[in-house]
């Protein structure tokens, strides 16, 4: 007969408000095999855990059920407590009567009945629980950082400085990301490139950092401490070892009028190019789509002028597989586009703002390039349409953000601040110009942030209009802005020379497919999900993968850098050990029952199933059976549900355990 202890938590009032915890304890106490059933205000607190430990000794308990919050919250806490009390931690289970019961039901009677059911099911499960021993696996002390923006750079430098090797993978030809595109940064207005480029050079020169630019993640295998990553090194058409970065190829390339993505289409670049002069590495890439040689087979000028003979038209994509122990994902963001979206997309553009067809309606990043001293206009604010200096500039905040009709309901967090910055930069460069800002709320929490915004209003005389814009349309060479001021309660019309839209921050295109390769979860907008909103903000639910920067949610530079360093610290915590204990939730084969059909092998997503030969003492082969490599097994249990002879068991989720629960329904 089992001796199970059941502890029902009040969670302050979170549970006891709707669930009669005393009654739950009393009812459960009547079940056979339950040696103790009691309730307590806060089970997770120190005295709560103490209560549990004491009970194990006093009542000689051989199984525990803690009826409290979700196991995702505190399973580890209570299993550790069980361990401290001398019990195998896997004999301790949680019954979720908070998230799945007290918080989602109002009727006290119903909620209590449900709570009793939930706990009863768990009691029956614990009766079938078996002691499990943790599995230890070695750790490869090398990290992969995906994305070479400020988040990836910071994380890579921190880990590398700690003495571990880092692979930094960047999709574009150069690292730097969006921060390299910015003009000046709030709230101090220091030049973005001035603080960014030294860091980029540090990355290039760091002995522990291996840089893969113009590369993408192709495939990821393995698990925490033991990932196998396949990187696609796209054909650069330039030999990185030979190239000296002299730039003569770019100067001589006859194809000069390709719109520069880095300059948001305001400037042009040649077909063989580096995105910007301070690029790291300073090795050009041939844009094969626009290169005359690749299009017609004629030209070849770059190869002819290249002294070291670095241009290589025959270069092919290369696939490189590297072992790493931890992964930091720092893929960043992109700006929402107001252009019409393809049918079926849940995100809509802004037809009322012209769907991006009015040339002098630009987004915030384009304005950054206009204002940047190294930008296509040399830092002069000039209209894209006719190169005139705009005298009336209208800024519109919350374009795409906080607009659930368009498909995005979140706040993009950085727009209030960068719009205030834009009005200042504009005023500094066009003294007789006037900036207007249509805004809904000015959200400026942060050190020196609100002061910054107030400065834009009070000293730089930006006119802030509390209201939104219904429509923009071209009238002659002006753009008519139809807005309203809800404080006055009247409509506002401004004939603007330039309109700057603070468009929403979105995850990168393809963020979902990268997440699928990594096996990490993401929300409806494709932002990557952290393991816990408050207590595990940089970890993924998938062990060994960490998040940094705007790929997890909109963030400004200071927040991004903090999170990147936090992710790096998590990687270093992992690397501080030589071996890793992992949950022993793995499949085991009952070799006597196995009929060697290898259905399990076919369905195993990890390739953990091997064919094992059983021989007699003389070495004669008797038969072949399946064997699950516990180091590789991910613990999904698909093999068990598939096995026709019921010869595989997933520890922690055995048929016996599951059936015990179903029987108790």
């Amino acid at each position, binding site marked *: 007969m089992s001796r199970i202890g059941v502890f029902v938590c009040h969670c302050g009032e979170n549970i006891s408000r709707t669930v009669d915890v005393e009654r739950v304890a009393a009812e459960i106490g009547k079940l056979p095999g339950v040696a103790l059933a009691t309730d307590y205000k806060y089970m997770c607190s120190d005295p709560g855990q103490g209560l549990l430990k004491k009970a194990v000794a006093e009542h000689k308990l051989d199984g525990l059920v803690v009826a409290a919050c979700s196991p995702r919250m505190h399973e580890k806490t209570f299993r550790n407590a069980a361990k401290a009390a001398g019990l195998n931690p896997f004999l301790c289970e949680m019954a979720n009567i908070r998230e799945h019961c007290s918080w989602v039901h109002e009727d006290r009677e119903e909620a209590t009945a449900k709570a009793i059911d939930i706990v009863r099911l768990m009691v029956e499960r614990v009766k079938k629980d078996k002691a499990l021993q943790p599995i230890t696996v070695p750790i490869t002390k090398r990290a992969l950082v995906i994305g070479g923006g400020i988040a990836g750079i910071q994380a890579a430098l921190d880990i590398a400085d700690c003495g571990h090797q880092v692979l930094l993978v960047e999709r574009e030809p150069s690292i730097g990301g969006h921060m390299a595109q910015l003009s000046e940064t709030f709230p101090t207005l220091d030049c973005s490139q001035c603080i960014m480029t030294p860091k980029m050079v540090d990355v290039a020169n760091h002995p522990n950092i291996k840089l893969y630019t113009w590369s993408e993640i192709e495939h990821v295998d393995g698990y925490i401490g033991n990932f196998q990553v396949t990187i696609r090194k796209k054909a650069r058409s330039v030999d990185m070892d030979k190239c000296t970065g002299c730039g003569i190829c770019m100067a001589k390339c006859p194809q000069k009028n390709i719109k520069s993505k880095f300059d948001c289409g305001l400037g042009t670049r040649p077909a063989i190019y580096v995105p910007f002069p301070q690029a790291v590495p300073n090795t050009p890439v041939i844009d094969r789509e626009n290169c005359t040689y690749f299009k017609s087979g004629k030209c070849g000028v770059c190869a002819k002028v290249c002294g070291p003979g670095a241009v290589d038209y025959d270069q092919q994509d290369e696939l490189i597989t590297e072992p790493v122990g931890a992964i930091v994902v720092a893929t960043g963001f992109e700006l929402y586009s107001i252009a019409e979206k393809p049918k079926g997309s849940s995100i809509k553009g802004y*037809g009322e703002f012209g769907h991006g067809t009015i040339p002098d309606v630009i987004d915030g990043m384009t304005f950054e390039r206009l204002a940047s001293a190294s930008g296509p206009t040399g830092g002069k604010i000039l209209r894209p349409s006719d190169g005139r200096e705009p005298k009336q500039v209208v800024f519109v905040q919350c374009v795409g953000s906080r607009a659930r009709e368009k498909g995005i309901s979140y706040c993009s967090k950085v727009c209030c601040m960068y719009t205030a910055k834009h009005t200042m930069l504009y005023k500094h460069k066009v003294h007789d110009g006037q900036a207007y800002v249509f805004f809904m709320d000015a959200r400026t929490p942060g050190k020196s942030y609100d002061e910054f915004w107030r400065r834009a209003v009070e000293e730089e005389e930006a006119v802030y209009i509390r209201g939104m814009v219904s429509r923009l*349309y071209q009238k002659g060479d002006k753009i008519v802005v139809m807005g309203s001021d809800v404080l006055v309660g009247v409509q506002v019309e401004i004939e603007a020379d330039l309109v700057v839209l603070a468009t929403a921050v979105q995850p990168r295109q393809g963020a979902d497919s990268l997440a699928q390769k990594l096996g990490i979860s993401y929300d409806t907008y494709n932002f990557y999900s952290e393991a816990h909103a408050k207590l595990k903000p940089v970890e993924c639910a998938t062990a060994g993968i960490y998040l940094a920067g705007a790929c997890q949610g909109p963030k400004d530079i200071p927040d991004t850098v903090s999170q990147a360093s936090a992710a790096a610290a998590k990687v270093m915590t992992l690397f501080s050990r030589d071996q890793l204990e992992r949950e022993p939730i793995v499949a085991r084969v009952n070799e006597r029952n196995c009929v060697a059909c290898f259905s399990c092998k076919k369905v195993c997503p990890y390739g953990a199933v091997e064919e094992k030969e059983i021989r007699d003492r003389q070495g004669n082969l008797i038969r072949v059976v399946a064997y699950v490599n516990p180091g590789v097994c991910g613990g999904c249990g698909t093999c068990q549900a598939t096995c026709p002879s019921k010869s595989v068991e997933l520890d922690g989720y055995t048929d016996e355990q599951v059936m015990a629960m179903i029987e108790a329904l």
Partner: protein
Amino acid sequence: MKNVLNYSYYPGCSLHASAKEYDESTKGVFKALRIGLNEVPDWFCCGATPAHNVDELLSLSLCAKNLSLADNVEGDLAVACAACFSRLKTAQHRLTENDIKRKQVETAIAGAVSLEKPVKHLLEILAKDYGLDRLADAVKKPLNGLKVATYYGCLLTRPPDVPELDCCEAPTIMENVIAATGAEPVAWSHRLECCGANFTLSRPGVVLNLSNAILASAKRAGADCIMVACPLCHGNLDIRQKEIEEANGTRYGMPVFYMTQLLGLAVGVPAGKLGLDSMIVNPLPLLKEKGLV
């Protein structure tokens, strides 16, 4: 090619009165293009704006009644008036989504609500079912040189989920249709603004104000004329144009055509069968100048 397109037809009240030239020219164009058009017998008023303004249930019931009457006539339901189109589509939409409202309407009309029949505006029929290429082929007298301001008004494309005709903020269907005739659609700013609609009766001052902005915008864009697909818009822009000019001290002299009148000219419907003489702002000087009559 054999006549394959066949529609049931809901003209709406205006097309039997103040917009009879719209009715006449629609029939003319469809005949010329060999598209069948059979009027639903004994149709009722759809309730238009006044009904849904104060009594949604009445509005939905009237539309549901008309939809069930239309079931007796073969072919998708062709609707000419933008207001009727909007009401019928909205009714289909609301009644599909809302079981409670559907049950109430079923009680009101003492019968099942039928929502299957596709309701199509003439524009949709011409641009999508008939096809722009075929339309261009059918043109006998191209309207070359005629600059047309295509006016959608509010109801043709709104609200976004209901009419499914075209993008509600940047539609192109009217431009595409008129461009097929060789005419030149102008880019102008007020094609989706409200003309004042049914305030024409109760508060004509409103109309003078709003419609003036529309006429001014069309003039600014260099349009020779305005093309509409709604009798209410036509009423405000054409019938009240003189008043608008007087109230604002300007002169527009801007003919306002129904889309089918211009299409009729292009596909060779005799000018006498297009009701051009019913227009208040005389279009003949313009048409003569362009060599179209």
